[in-house]
């Protein structure tokens, strides 16, 4: 049986004649569906974004970007975001802070929207090259309609940028066939784009093999040995670049990659606060979010298998596997932490698989049958969009209960004390500072997860610039204290002007911090707004004039 999906010879787009004045209008018309899809995607995305204040992650990354830019210009020690961020802080957060400077949170979110629309465009282009025009329209319609796609396009986090970069790498990969004019340039672009994607968000490394395999399949017609060689070459090039970058980044980056991604602990971790979930629940959630494209991908595998087109079957299976990668990863961790962000990238590949199913169905039969397949496929894709768009709000992270804004309003006058140090609950500290637009530099802002308290009289500083021993117990040679002992010492020394357990972390360390505050004279309960206590060290505020343009009620 003739292979209908295998990428060689080049599909529809490559066979298209060069544009002339005669067919410019027709060419423009072929782009109209994509323009329509992108417009719908933009509208559905912005529907989520307007009315939603910054989420914890958004606040954190934009705040971090501002701190890094400040550090770049003025020095003053490093906040070492690279040790715990799940992407290189010098890429997206800095870009986000620049956009924030220009147009605030709306501009940063618009940037995400552009990234996600680019991902839809690359999906269209990739699927068109592989399977033709109709599968491309169907695939990009399904992807644009997925709630996760809309949610990430309305969220100022690195996910949208990382997804875009992986999809560009995938697009580069499908242009590496022997018939391509600049195959070598496209081939070189693959590891570079993957490097950028992986650096933007480390977890995207999970999709590197998928992209590399995609590039290898482009030359599979020349024999599997050649494909294997390409896998080896691209794999080595990408790995070498990643290792080189990691080496240049230093041990802090290595720690960050291990901590946030590779050696990430499961749902029981106090840092990743997701609860331990059953396999059934994880699969069910994934199904709810991206079930349709994955099912369509599976259908493509089944169809090609039934037709005994094994080469096509393997090709489709690749997209099915990519569509399930994130779910499999989360099953290993027993948590759904961040799964809704990563699943969208899986969905991108699954949508190509869905497109391939349409390609299989529409390549046989008469004109009428083909027309019916086209109508049913497009209608199905639109209905999928209608369905999934309704689920978008359930996974959208930003906005929510007005309590967050009330807490920010309550704390604001107390966060404007010059050189005051503040400890705010772990999931909300940067968010509160960002929402309040108060200028609190990183070395005056603490959370309930990590402290490096400089023991008075031992030469340490709150910037951590002076190097010295860091201990979990007070010992003669220690310069800094970490862990609950550090918090207790800091609280007893009235190191913090304000301590708020707002942030909903509820860790054992939180309980111990609260107990330390309650047993330290001088700290007074300011409020329990949001259901969490906030104390201030009243003497620190006495005599200080706290001016705020926003304090008038």
């Amino acid at each position, binding site marked *: 049986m003739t292979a209908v999906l295998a990428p060689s010879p080049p599909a529809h787009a490559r066979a298209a004649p060069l544009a002339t004045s005669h067919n410019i209008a027709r060419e423009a018309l072929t782009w109209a569906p994509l323009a329509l899809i992108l417009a719908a995607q933009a509208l559905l995305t912005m529907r989520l974004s307007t009315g939603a204040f*910054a989420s914890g992650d958004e606040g954190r990354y934009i705040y971090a970007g501002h701190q890094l830019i400040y550090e770049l210009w003025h020095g003053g020690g490093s906040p070492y975001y690279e040790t715990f961020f799940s992407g290189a802080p010098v890429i997206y957060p800095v870009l986000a802070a620049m956009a924030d400077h220009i147009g605030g949170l709306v501009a940063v979110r618009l*940037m995400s929207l*552009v990234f996600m629309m680019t991902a839809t465009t690359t999906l269209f282009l990739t699927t068109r090259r592989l399977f033709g025009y109709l599968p491309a329209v169907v695939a990009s319609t399904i992807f644009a309609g997925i709630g996760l796609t809309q949610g990430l396009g309305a969220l100022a986090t690195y996910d949208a940028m990382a997804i875009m970069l992986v999809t560009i790498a995938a697009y580069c990969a499908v242009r590496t066939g022997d018939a391509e004019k600049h195959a070598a340039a496209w081939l070189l672009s693959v590891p570079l784009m993957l490097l950028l994607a992986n650096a933007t968000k480390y977890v995207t490394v999970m999709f590197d093999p998928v992209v590399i395999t995609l590039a290898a399949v482009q030359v599979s017609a020349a024999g599997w040995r050649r494909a294997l060689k390409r896998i080896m070459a691209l794999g080595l090039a990408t790995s070498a670049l990643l290792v080189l970058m990691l080496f240049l980044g230093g041990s802090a980056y290595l720690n960050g990659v291990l901590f946030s991604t590779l050696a990430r602990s499961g749902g029981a971790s106090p840092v990743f606060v997701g609860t331990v979930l059953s396999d059934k629940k994880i699969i069910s959630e994934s199904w709810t979010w991206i079930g349709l494209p994955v099912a369509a991908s599976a259908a493509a595998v089944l169809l090609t298998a039934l037709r005994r087109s094994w080469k096509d079957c393997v090709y489709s299976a690749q997209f099915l596997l990519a569509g399930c990668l994130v779910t499999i990863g989360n099953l290993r961790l027993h948590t759904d932490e961040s799964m809704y962000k990563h699943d969208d990238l899986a969905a991108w590949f699954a949508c190509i698989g869905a497109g391939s199913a349409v390609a299989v169905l529409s390549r046989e039969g008469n004109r009428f049958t083909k027309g019916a397949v086209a109508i049913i496929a497009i209608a199905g894709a639109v209905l999928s969009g209608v369905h999934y768009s309704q689920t978008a709000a359930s996974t959208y992270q930003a906005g929510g209960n007005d309590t967050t804004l*009330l807490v*920010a309003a309550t704390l604001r006058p107390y966060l404007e004390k010059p050189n005051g140090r503040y400890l705010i609950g772990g999931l909300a500290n940067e968010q509160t500072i960002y929402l309040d637009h108060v200028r609190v530099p990183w070395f005056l802002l603490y959370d309930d997860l990590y402290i490096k308290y400089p023991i008075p009289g031992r030469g340490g500083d709150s910037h951590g610039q002076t190097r010295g021993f860091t201990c979990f117990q007070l010992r003669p040679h220690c310069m800094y204290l970490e862990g609950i002992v550090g918090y207790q010492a800091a609280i007893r020394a009235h190191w913090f002007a304000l301590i708020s357990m707002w942030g909903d972390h509820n860790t054992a360390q939180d309980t111990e911090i609260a107990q330390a505050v309650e047993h330290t004279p001088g700290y*007074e309960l300011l409020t329990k707004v949001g*259901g969490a206590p906030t104390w201030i060290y009243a003497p620190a*505020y006495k005599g200080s004039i706290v001016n705020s343009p926003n304090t008038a009620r």
Partner: protein
Amino acid sequence: MGRYWREFLAVLAGVTVLVGGCAAASHLKVLQTPSVPSSLPFALPSPSSATAFQRGIDVDFYAYPGQDVTAAADVTVDYVRSLHANAIAISFPFFMTSRYAAGVHAGSATPTPDQLATVITEAQRAGMKVTLRPLLDENALGESRVHLLPVNMPAWFASYQKFLYPYLVMARQLHVSEFILGTELTRFSRSNQWGKLDTATRRIYHGQLGCADNWNVQTDGCGITGQLVDAYQPLLPPLAAAWTSYDASFPRGTVLAEVGIAAVDDAWNKPYLHGWPGAALDPAMQAQWFTAACHAATAAHLGGVYFWSLGLSVDQTGPTLADETQWAHSPGASAISGCFASIEESGL
């Protein structure tokens, strides 16, 4: 110019237009995200406010369609704060179809947990201790709730537990300080069914549980130790002495959960009576009652006093012939404010 340069310039122009367009769009009003509301004025908390005398106001929250709860909460809490109060008790109604009904249920006037959460959050934001009080509406009973004896006790408690569940969950989430499990259910406040309800409640809500008696303290009412009193015992003038004597009968630390009286002549005879048809308004008498109750409570080292009541409304009114028990913006309010201010200054 070569083809590649043209393509490069086209891409560059496209990116520039995109960036410029996004930058311009980001300033559109329609796209703006909600901003943080204005803050309360900077104020230092008074020391040890957690154990302070409860200078409380009762808020009686009956919901109705179209009610702007956020605005009403804003106005009401602001007004409570202006009275130098540091605590607020929010009563909300639940219903029985008749005194013979098997169980209780929420009615259209029962606020939802979300509506209550709005008020609670506003009060917590103002730094107040918050108490929640589900209160059995008397209209369908045909008698005072203090005389009620459910015909089917297990069924009544089962329905009450079901009714309470979402409110207890909300109270736990918002860390509400105290939840009054039973108010003025005097005839069956010693029922052994309370024990089961308490156990079920404590599995959900971890704050302080209370039981409010009428007139006098009964030990172990509602099966729990946190007893409060709705202080409606008739007292004869001179009121200061009468209140001092009345309060002396309570254990130290007891909280007067309701102190209220109609602003009419001789209401001290029946402070529990709400309707006084034909009686002349006497706001001064109401003010004297409040002042005496407030000062006596501090002298007797009680845990606090709550004045009954303000409705949850954007319009807080004083006593009228239609409702003589109101006191906002009247001499009664001045009496409360004056007493609370003096307690606040004394650092109690």
